């Protein structure tokens, strides 16, 4: 009954100009009691393609000198024509599939006109009327929320303009002009700044795992525009304001909070919220007006006559679906299924999300792939411990990250084997690990262990016996204390033995032998 009513309400809403949000059960928020916050996000993610969306110019990176990756088409020279890069379409379709969206069999490109110095042709090629994909969704596990995706479209990025106050000039760099972007538009399904943050982070992880974008807000490969409105609980939706130019998830959540308070303060005073576009001042922690609705430009959208409609058939979509890289939720489920703890999976995937995204959808090997290869034919729990605790720990100690890891899959695998079967002690294993990290030797751990005399003694306990006797002889007072019943002191004698054995003796065996000798 309720479902039917909800569906009717949604149909009614479609006829209204303003969208009704989903019938989500309201959760009280102590920050604004009695009020409900409604958030929708438009994400622009730069496509990680080798070449631009409509020209053959190569993608640049942050180190490229300005205006070195510009073709005549990108600079809007007269007589140039666009040519759609099929790799961009592939990455867009991969993203659409990962977001459970319906890839449209026919989509088209339009021109969005406005004058700005970073837009050489005076229009941006986008997909206003017929986007690449519609009706997707993204599940936020931790918040137990599903955010609906309204549409995904391909469009051109603009160049970059930098204002130089000293010369009172604006410098234009066209390296980025014409790069492909995916605009991912969500429905207004989020109800808190935290949910908005989760959404963006989940989207970033998904884009990186699919290989379609670096999804890095700080570097500019992911940009968010946020729509915020407030309404009294149970009341009709409020007027929304758009916040642009947010450059980090943290700033986005703070900005949403500030904007919510601003709108509530206005409405409490009986002043209506004006629909406008606002920016966010980090230092003052407040939003400010950029442009009101009256100043909103008329973009005069026109179908681009130079670009035939994009026709995508089922075979193409199926082929991409078959070759899709593993998505985060599938990876998580798989790792948990192998017996890893939630925490280990969390750490592994977090490190993995920092792996490099290759051009044109070729994925780099990250921590998860590393783990997969090392754990082949081995105990996954042992392997994950070595990776997440020892390896990452040692790397962190050296102020390095997983990308700096020199230890090959073979080396790591052998190390785990040696320790598991007792050929080297755990302590020795750690020593070997440290050795490889600092010397970057390609030698296998077994060779290193031999060379450094770290192999565990297997002479039936003879060396162990000798070391213990030596230690007892070296520490007579402590030995006497143990004999008299103060068992704790045996740890000190153990330390002596461990040192003598250079870590090759097993701690348990040392303790047992010492206690026996000191009976």
């Amino acid at each position: 009954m309720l479902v039917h009513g909800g569906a009717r309400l949604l149909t009614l809403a479609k006829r209204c100009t303003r969208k009704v949000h989903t019938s989500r059960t309201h959760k009280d928020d102590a920050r604004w009691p009695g009020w409900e916050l409604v958030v929708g996000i438009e994400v622009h993610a730069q496509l990680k393609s080798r070449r631009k969306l409509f020209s053959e110019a190569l993608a640049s990176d942050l180190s490229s000198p300005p205006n070195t990756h510009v073709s005549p088409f990108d600079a809007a020279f007269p007589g140039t024509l666009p040519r759609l890069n099929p790799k961009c379409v592939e990455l867009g379709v991969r993203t659409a599939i990962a977001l459970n969206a319906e890839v449209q069999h026919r989509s088209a490109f339009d021109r969005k006109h406005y004058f700005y110095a970073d837009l050489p042709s005076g229009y941006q090629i986008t997909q206003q009327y017929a986007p690449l994909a519609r009706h997707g969704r993204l599940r936020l596990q931790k918040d137990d929320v599903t955010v609906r995706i309204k549409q995904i479209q391909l469009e051109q990025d603009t160049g970059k303009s930098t204002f130089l106050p000293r010369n009172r000039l604006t410098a234009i760099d066209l390296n980025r002009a014409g790069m492909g972007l995916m605009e991912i538009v969500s429905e207004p399904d989020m109800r808190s700044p935290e949910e908005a943050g989760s959404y963006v982070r989940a989207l970033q992880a998904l884009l990186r795992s699919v290989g379609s974008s670096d999804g890095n807000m700080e570097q500019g490969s992911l940009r968010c525009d946020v729509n915020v409105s407030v309404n009294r609980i149970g009341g009709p939706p409020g007027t929304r304001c758009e916040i642009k130019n947010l450059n980090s998830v943290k700033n986005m959540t703070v900005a949403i909070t500030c904007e919510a308070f601003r709108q509530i303060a206005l409405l409490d005073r009986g002043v209506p919220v004006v629909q406008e576009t606002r920016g966010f001042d980090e230092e003052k922690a407040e939003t400010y007006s950029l442009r009101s609705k009256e100043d909103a430009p008329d973009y005069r959208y026109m179908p681009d006559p130079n670009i035939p409609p994009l026709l995508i058939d089922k075979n193409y979509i199926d082929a991409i679906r078959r070759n899709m890289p593993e998505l985060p939720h599938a990876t998580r489920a798989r790792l948990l299924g192998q017996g890893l703890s939630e925490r280990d999976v969390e750490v592994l995937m977090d490190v993995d999300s920092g792996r490099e995204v290759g051009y044109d959808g070729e994925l780099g090997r990250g921590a998860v792939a590393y783990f997969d290869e090392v754990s082949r034919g081995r105990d996954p729990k042992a392997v994950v411990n070595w990776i997440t605790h020892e390896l990452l720990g040692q790397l962190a100690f050296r102020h390095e990250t997983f990308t700096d890891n020199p230890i090959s899959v073979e080396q790591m695998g052998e190390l785990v084997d040696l320790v598991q079967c007792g050929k080297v002690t755990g302590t020795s294993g750690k020593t070997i690990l440290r050795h490889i990290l600092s010397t970057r030797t390609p030698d296998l751990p077994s060779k290193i262990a031999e060379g450094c005399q770290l192999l565990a003694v297997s002479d039936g306990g003879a060396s162990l016996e000798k070391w213990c006797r030596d230690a007892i002889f070296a520490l007579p007072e402590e030995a006497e204390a143990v004999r008299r019943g103060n068992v704790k002191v045996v740890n000190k004698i153990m330390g002596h033995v461990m040192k003598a054995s250079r870590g090759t003796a097993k701690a348990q065996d040392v303790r047992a032998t010492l206690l026996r000798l000191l009976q």
Partner: protein
Amino acid sequence: MTVAVKDNICTKSLPTTCSSRMLENFTSPFDATVVSLLSENGAAIVGKANCDEFGMGSLNVYSVHGPVVNPFGLEGGPPEQRRSAGGSSGGSAAAVAAGLCDAALGTDTGGSVRLPASYCGVVGLKPSYGIVSRWGVVPFADSLDCVGVVGKDVSTVGRILNAIAKYDERDRTAAPPHVRTKAREMCAIRLGTVGADGLNGLRIGVPQEYFPTELQSSIVQSLTKVLDRLRGKGATIMPVSLPSTPYALSAYYVISSAEASSNLARYDGIEYGLRVEPPPGANLTKTANVYAHSRSLGFGKEVQRRILLGTYALSADAFENYFLQAQRVRKLIKADFDRVFGVPNPLRTYASHDGAFSGGVDVIIHPSAIQTAPALPGLEDTPPSDSSTLNAYVQDVLTVPASLAGLPALSVPAGMGSDGWPIGVSIVGQWGSDEMVRRVGEVLESCELESA
């Protein structure tokens, strides 16, 4: 062969000004595909031809280089009247008519090759849309622009067309090879039945709606004579109806102006072209205000007029009633043509076609222009009255339908008007039947020579 190239087609070694102050000192960093193809085939590019600014005009008077004078009647001294060479490819037609070159490339958006050819007494061809690459052709209206060829006879024009009608990957609106092959095959089958000599069994349609009141009576007489001669060669002449024709001119001006306003948005004086610094104290708050200084000086009055009209047609208020309505009219015009031609449109048939002729006509023939070359206005700087601007637009009334439908159209000289100035007759065929159109043109031309 010596060839002139219209100044809106990019050449690396010569400036490409588009007859505009905006690009007065512009040299393109690359050659247009058609220019490369001509050079590869051994043609000598002798120079760039004057035209209406950015291809917008029917009289070639809107040019930073000054107006083009029709060379007809120039032999032995100054002409008795200064008459227009037509536009926008006036320079191309005049160069060929004056014997300055064997052939010339032009562009035809609404008649800009056929009209000047008709006024100057030479042959002008607008090929099927998508047959010749537009890479390097400065766009006026992308969905209408075609590179056209002007020559002294049909054979010359045919040779040039063969050299430049090549598939180019860089132009995504170019017809792909398999479609070209299909069209060629369909045309060849029909030409086969018609016979190698003469026009036996060829069916020629005369559209009823192409005789507006503005049409000079001497032109109708010339057309009648042409039709008689073709009948003598074995063709069947029959009336046909293209009922949407009266709406074509309005639809054309809405669509072409809208696309022009979009295509000319790039001229901002930043990457290339004329840059006029805003004077001290000028409002610099909006980018558009900065650009306005360069654009107001760089564009001539006609271009400005069309940009304003086109911008309006795309504005939120007007989009539905002007731009979308014009597109609907365009669909009707295409449907009109598809209904009268005997072969289906290769772009619209999905199943393969055996070329079977299903009634209908092979080509349509009509006058190229409503009059002979008009007199040049006194000074091009005097602002034209509303009526004279609209009169200039009316010159295109007979040529725009074929442009809107993307069909091949060839204007061939067909006698003189009552004032002794040239008259042209246009042959229009189904999409891709450029060969058929050319054949009819050849026959028409030989008829003219015979009767002379």
